[in-house]
């Protein structure tokens, strides 16, 4: 997976010239992130299935919580990064911010999809239904549609400044949905549980500890994927520019 760390001749030249592709290349970062993510995943799985207490009411399916919450968190974090990078792009007009936004959007789409799927399975065991038009679920589905719209926009408009600008605007406007998702359980009466992390006495300390390990692990995975996709975006742009120079 550390394939993105290999540098081609053209990239080396661009890096020496201090051009747009002259970003700091840290091959060791990918290796460290991958190693930490792998260790974190193994530790998380061990803790979830061997240490975590079984919920008295929900039973075993409650353990979905330890993966459902982190993937949902990454889905929202990715949109936060997308919005921040979009603002930076509109302000600085530096395409590297656009690469970052694009990379984050793609990863966010994957994670928010997984959040919806795991939430649906958990809902089936707890509520007896795969889906309900609950405020939290509906606002999360809206976020998923925003992500899909963003990816479609990027795909249809190609790698142009107009595409980057339009997508940046969509990314910033779409971010409004993230605080709505977070607050939906407080603003409306929902089936979805209220926020329990950070509420004193809501969860046993070992449950919070295991959840934190899982959250850190998924955040490391997000960082690893971001490095890979950023390099991919950079390489694609280089290839496009070289092809254009030949024509």
């Amino acid at each position, binding site marked *: 997976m550390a*394939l993105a760390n290999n540098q081609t*001749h053209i990239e080396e030249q661009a890096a020496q010239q201090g051009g747009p592709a002259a970003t700091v290349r840290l091959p060791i970062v990918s290796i460290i992130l991958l190693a930490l993510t792998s260790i974190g995943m193994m530790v998380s799985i061990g803790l979830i299935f061997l240490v975590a207490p079984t919920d008295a009411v929900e039973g075993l*399916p409650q353990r979905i919580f330890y*993966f459902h919450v982190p993937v949902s968190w990454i889905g929202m974090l990715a949109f936060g990064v997308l919005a921040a990078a979009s603002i930076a792009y509109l302000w600085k007009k530096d395409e590297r911010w656009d690469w970052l936004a694009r990379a984050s959007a793609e990863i966010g789409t994957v994670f928010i*999809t*997984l959040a919806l799927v795991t939430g649906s399975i958990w809902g089936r065991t707890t509520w007896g239904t795969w889906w309900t038009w609950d405020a939290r679920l509906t606002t999360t589905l809206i976020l998923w549609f925003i992500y899909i719209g963003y990816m479609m926009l990027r795909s249809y408009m190609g790698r142009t400044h107009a595409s980057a600008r339009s997508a940046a605007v969509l990314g910033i406007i779409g971010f409004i949905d993230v605080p709505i998702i977070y607050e939906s359980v407080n603003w409306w009466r929902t089936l979805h549980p209220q926020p329990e992390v950070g509420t004193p006495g809501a969860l046993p300390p070992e449950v919070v500890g295991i959840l934190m390990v899982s959250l850190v692990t998924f955040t490391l*995975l997000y960082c690893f994927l971001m490095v*890979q996709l950023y390099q*991919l975006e950079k*390489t694609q742009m280089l290839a496009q520019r070289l092809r254009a120079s030949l024509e």
Partner: protein
Amino acid sequence: MQGINYLIAAYAIVWLGLLIYMAIVMLRIRGVRTELAAVEELVREQHNNATTINDNPTPKY
């Protein structure tokens, strides 16, 4: 007992989904690198041809 099936399904979907996505990213990176190497070779060839023409200009009669 049915709860275990849902638990396994949820974890399997997350793991498989992430592994498949990472494999796709890896293949995309490999594809772009191959493409870049090919374009790089074309640029080098073009550069070499230009140098040869400059070194051996067409004789004027």
